[in-house]
């Protein structure tokens, strides 16, 4: 959609498996959001997804092989890799899945790339539904949301350390003991 | 004289016996807890109770509703003696009571129009 070039903070636009992804500067996310809602009619924010790309493309992140003492889920074993995926600009991606509830429904993914601890403005003024989604992104992934009125942990205990969905956070749980040996 | 009170005595005996066995039984067969845990004594508040609530005042509306209930509930108490002797009193008793009801009806319409029945 060439009309997307006029979005403030425009960086790049991709179409893959039938979905358009619009990448914008994190700083100008709020203006882009306001523009998308008012001018292009994306009045419905369906989802905010934070993705951690730490260790993306490094070969060691694939298969698991059971070891004698049981399969420790946290230490992966390499299993070879045909194609190394293309590198990502920064570590975190924040995807806003937008939808226009109108006569001709359209979907769009508004994407912003962030580094560790880089703040991003909250889009609650534009879509009030972003409140819980942003709290969850902060809680599970540690994305610093600026201007969020109630930025607290939502799914985990308030005294929980660390952000579980990050790639460097271990899966936790207990190693599975195969009852064969004891 | 004794035998017309006998059924009442038997009835009273049972009225005493049944709750007594329940109370005593629940003490005799109860299994005492091993150790008194603080969580056991605080009120149940869906699992996240911090302890009995600090002094909480109740709004006056509860008091108002309670008064209205008592007022209109006691009417029924007066109906019982009337029902027992209504046959002898015949029409006089009926009209007598109608007057009583009308007075209460006036009171009911008054508080209804005043809006005391709606919650706020």
């Amino acid at each position, binding site marked *: 959609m060439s009309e997307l070039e006029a979005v403030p903070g425009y960086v790049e636009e991709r179409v893959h498996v039938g979905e358009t992804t619009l990448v914008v500067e994190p700083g100008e996310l709020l203006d882009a959001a306001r523009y998308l809602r008012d001018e292009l009619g994306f009045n419905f924010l369906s989802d905010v997804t934070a993705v951690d790309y730490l260790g993306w493309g490094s070969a060691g992140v694939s298969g698991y092989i059971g070891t004698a003492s049981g399969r420790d*889920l946290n230490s992966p074993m390499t299993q070879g890799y045909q194609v190394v995926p293309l590198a990502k600009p920064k570590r975190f991606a924040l995807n806003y899945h937008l939808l226009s509830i109108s006569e001709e429904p359209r979907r769009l993914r508004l994407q912003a790339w962030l580094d560790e601890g880089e703040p991003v403005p909250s889009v609650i003024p534009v879509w009030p539904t972003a409140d819980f989604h942003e709290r969850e992104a902060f809680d599970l992934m540690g994305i610093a949301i600026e201007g969020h009125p109630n930025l607290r942990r939502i799914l*985990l*205990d308030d005294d929980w350390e660390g952000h*579980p969905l990050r790639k460097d*956070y*271990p*899966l*936790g*749980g*207990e190693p*599975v003991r195969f009852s064969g040996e004891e | 004289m004794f035998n017309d009170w006998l059924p009442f005595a038997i009835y009273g005996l049972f009225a005493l016996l049944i709750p007594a066995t329940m109370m005593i039984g629940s003490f005799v*067969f*109860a*299994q*005492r*807890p*091993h150790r008194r*845990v603080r*969580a*056991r004594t605080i009120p*149940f508040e*869906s*699992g*996240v*109770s911090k302890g009995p609530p600090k002094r909480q005042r109740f709004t006056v509306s509860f008091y108002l509703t309670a008064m209205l209930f008592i007022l209109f509930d006691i009417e029924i108490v007066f109906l019982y003696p009337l029902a027992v002797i209504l046959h002898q009193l015949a029409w006089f008793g009926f009209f007598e009571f109608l007057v009583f009801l009308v007075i209460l009806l006036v009171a009911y319409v008054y508080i209804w129009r005043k809006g005391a029945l709606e919650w706020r």
Partner: protein
Amino acid sequence: MALDKPLRAYGLKSERLLMPTKASAFEQEVADLEQKVGLTTLAKAVAWAQTNSMWPDTFGLACCAIEMMSIVGARYDIARFGMEPFRGSPRQADLLIVSGRVAHKMAAPLRQIYDQMLEPKWVIAMGACASSGGMFNNYAVVQSVDKIVPVDIYVPGCPPRPDQLMEGIIRLHEAVKAGVPPAYEIRSVAS
């Protein structure tokens, strides 16, 4: 072995006793325990009274709660065991059916509710997630409920069919009638 007479004629309580040869280890255990403990007739009467009106606490967590609800339904109907009033407050409940995965945030309320239940009280860990953390071997789920509360009966399945849960309940009743003490007297919470 076709049944020509009704079960009562055989003097049997449930079909499982029909197969003495294949009766599971549980029956042997319950049977010889009955001799070993040797309950007095009064204790037997108390155990009988406890099992025939064991009121569960509504502690529905996840998918197992939906199957727990359906045992109250018309087809499985635990009213036959005197258990259909699912009590809202732990004060009036005898049996805590932990149905579903227990998150770490839910561990403290679960322990508080268990403490607020009055003795004698029993716990059924319903489903794989309550019994062993199930398929969620991760940071968020307590890997088994017996890390928080002593558990009497573990019901396998994900979610267990309603008749699987009732099998667990029947076995709990038979164990109590045989004189098995509740879990908190046998062992404290698993390490």
